[in-house]
């Protein structure tokens, strides 16, 4: 690699125009933003699909769309949200932007592979969405369980498989890059245990991706044989075995839930200390709990299969293993609380979303542990209780963190602040809408409303309507965000290089950063969380954008 000397890239300090965001750029920051913006577009698409679902479910009969269309919409919604929004954004988006800074590098370990990984995503997404208009989309849900996926129309299902294979490949390439970057590209003198927590989160996540995503790929290849060549791997009519599909699928897809939430753990661990002006509590235990989650995450998959004829000994093992996950997760939860405890908290948008994350995550964790108990799970499996559980974690957890991260890093991306009032409005709408949408679903599930149906018992109407109103609020909540992000890019208050007075290396350079991240040598930060500034010396205006919320403690 030939490297520009500091003098020669003085001139290229600022971004070189918009076109490079549409190019095969090798700059990790460009790629990170490519992931982020592409992901957000898919979030809007997935959100529109959710809107269709909630409109249909506002009444107990199937009146808004046909049942087949409902299945297609449901399948697309799940697939888009998981594989095209959450996974690419918390991994590829923030990972690519931040990890090279955190390890003190100028780029990722394999910049070209990085660009390839990103450019696999738009075609996969377009393929998936266009299948709806061309042949009809897949109808068997994001889990594509056979025999349903074998008996529903083949074209849509095959396109679905192709698309998920592309996305899985992209995810694997990304993960290889993250592992190599964190382990091999650290600047000399920077120890592993001095890395910002997000690095550890991405290391753990990437290990999960490398170990589990290939299994999904292999499984989907076999499934496509069943569909196209009429083999019988997963087709009982031909002597095959559907449960094998479930095992292989969940061997990937349980780790996949951690692939969606571990990076969010990492991001929130970066955001909390800065806005509470305190060191991250329990760094070492945080690291070990991430590693513990990685290990346990690989051996709990059959808790999704308690009603699949799973033998008792297996149920017992998977119940116990799953319940154990509450230990490292609980450690992280208390560490976050302890980080906040006694801090000089700036309740700005980033902090509001982060605190809501903690709240939602703990709630979803508790329903998760409940679901891990076989006697309980056999009653609520495949009901709306499960839908409530995972949306509390995936949306209330990860998506809230993505929003927090947008408010937190936008000044770095653009050099301008997001508007705080709009941010708080966005938070309020999202928070109320989200809880109104998903809290009732627990009750619905406990009372027996099955998931993945377009029609339901009229007794459930009221709560479903409440849920739909919540969804409407969530849809509205994207408007202030969108407006804010676009308006602030041109008119936002100029942020300066380090508006939060943070210590992690991405803030120790200009905003937006120059092409190779720092002019001159990279700063070597041994203590990324050393916020020990006495409280009366903190300039709160600089920290929160306004000191409205932050008096009370000193």
């Amino acid at each position: 690699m030939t490297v520009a000397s500091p003098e020669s890239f003085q001139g290229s300090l600022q971004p070189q125009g918009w076109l490079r965001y549409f190019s095969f750029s090798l700059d990790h920051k460009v790629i990170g933003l490519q992931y982020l913006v592409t992901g957000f577009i898919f979030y809007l698409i997935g959100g529109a699909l959710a809107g269709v679902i909630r409109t249909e479910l506002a009444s107990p009969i199937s009146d808004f769309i046909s049942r087949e269309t409902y299945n297609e919409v449901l399948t697309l919604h799940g697939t888009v949200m998981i594989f095209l929004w959450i996974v690419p954004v918390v991994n590829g988006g923030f990972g690519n932007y931040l990890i090279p800074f955190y390890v003190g590098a100028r780029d990722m370990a394999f910049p070209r592979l990085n660009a390839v990984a990103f450019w696999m995503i738009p075609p996969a997404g377009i393929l998936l969405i266009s299948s709806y208009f061309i042949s009809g989309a897949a109808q068997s849900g994001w889990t594509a369980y056979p025999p349903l996926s074998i008996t529903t129309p083949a074209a849509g299902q095959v396109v679905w498989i192709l698309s998920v294979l592309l996305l899985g490949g992209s995810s694997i390439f990304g993960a290889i890059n993250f592992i190599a970057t964190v382990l091999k590209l650290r600047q000399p003198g920077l120890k592993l245990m001095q890395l910002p927590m997000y690095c550890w989160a991405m290391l753990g996540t990437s290990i999960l991706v490398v170990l589990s995503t290939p299994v999904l790929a292999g499984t989907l290849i076999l499934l496509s044989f069943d569909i196209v060549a009429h083999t019988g791997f997963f087709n009982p009519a031909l002597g095959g075995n559907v449960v094998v599909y479930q095992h292989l699928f969940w061997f990937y897809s349980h780790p996949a839930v951690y692939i969606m939430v571990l990076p969010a753990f990492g991001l929130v661990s970066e955001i909390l200390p800065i806005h509470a002006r305190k060191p991250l509590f329990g760094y070492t235990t945080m690291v070990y709990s991430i590693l513990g989650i990685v290990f346990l995450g690989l051996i709990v998959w059959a808790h999704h299969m308690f009603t699949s004829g799973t033998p008792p000994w297996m149920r017992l093992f998977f119940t116990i293993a799953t319940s154990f996950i509450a230990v490292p997760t609980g450690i992280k939860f208390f560490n976050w609380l302890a980080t906040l405890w006694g801090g000089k908290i700036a309740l700005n948008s980033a902090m509001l979303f982060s605190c809501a994350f903690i709240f939602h995550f703990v709630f979803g964790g508790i329903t998760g542990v409940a679901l891990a108990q076989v006697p309980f799970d056999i009653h609520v499996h495949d009901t709306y209780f499960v839908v409530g559980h995972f949306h509390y974690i995936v949306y209330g957890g990860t998506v809230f963190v993505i929003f927090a991260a947008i408010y937190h890093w936008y000044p770095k991306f653009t050099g301008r602040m997001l508007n705080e009032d709009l941010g708080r409005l966005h938070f309020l709408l999202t928070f109320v809408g989200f809880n109104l949408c998903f809290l009732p679903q627990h009750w619905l599930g406990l009372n027996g409303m099955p998931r993945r149906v377009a029609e339901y018992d009229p007794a459930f109407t009221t709560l479903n309507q409440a849920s739909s109103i919540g969804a409407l609020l969530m849809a509205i909540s994207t408007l202030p965000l969108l407006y804010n992000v676009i308006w602030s890019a041109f008119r936002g208050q100029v942020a300066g290089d380090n508006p939060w007075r943070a210590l992690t290396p991405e803030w120790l350079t200009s905003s937006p950063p120059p092409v190779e991240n720092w002019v001159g040598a990279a700063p070597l930060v041994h203590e990324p969380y050393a916020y020990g500034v006495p409280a009366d010396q903190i300039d709160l205006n600089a920290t929160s954008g306004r000191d409205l919320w932050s008096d009370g403690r000193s």
Partner: protein
Amino acid sequence: MTSLAPSSTVVTTTSLAQPVEAVEHGHGDFRMFGLLLFLVADGMTFAGFFAAYLTFRAVNPLPPGSNYELELLLPSLNTVLLVVSSFTFHRGGKQLLAGNRSGCRPWLLLTAALGSAFLAGQMVEYFSLPFGLTENLFASTFYALTGFHGLHVTLGVICILVVWFQTRDQGRVTASEPFGLEAAELYWHFVDVIWLVLFGLLYVL
């Protein structure tokens, strides 16, 4: 709490002008490390297939009278070919690292030839088998596993030929820049090991 005391290692924007420590620019070569990670991933794909195969065998008995007899002679010969090819590749690699490019190239060709012979043997076996892809669960699994492995061998042979081409006089693979050869070799050994497992599971077990 100690955390409230200003820490001596705090790096603030003001210190941007004098970074704490200068860092050397540029970095080592960790393409092999990346390849290793890729092979772990690839190996997991096979692990998934093997797990599926073993479960099928354990819980899905074939209907009586099913046809699943495998000939052992040809596959055993194939196994020998592949194992030998790992050694020939290694010999070639050692020659290159010792600076003897012309001594390396015949070994590469020989390795590619052994790989191709393996593929030819595989084809002969496919055409002589009494069952097709959709005959029964065993047949499907057999073809899926050996076929997926065969694709790997094909890719490996292509890589070897490319490396062979790159070790010519003006080529980019040299004793001081041996990445292409080392990568192909690692991959080839990997494909070989997978075959041994596969052979054990499909033919011997």
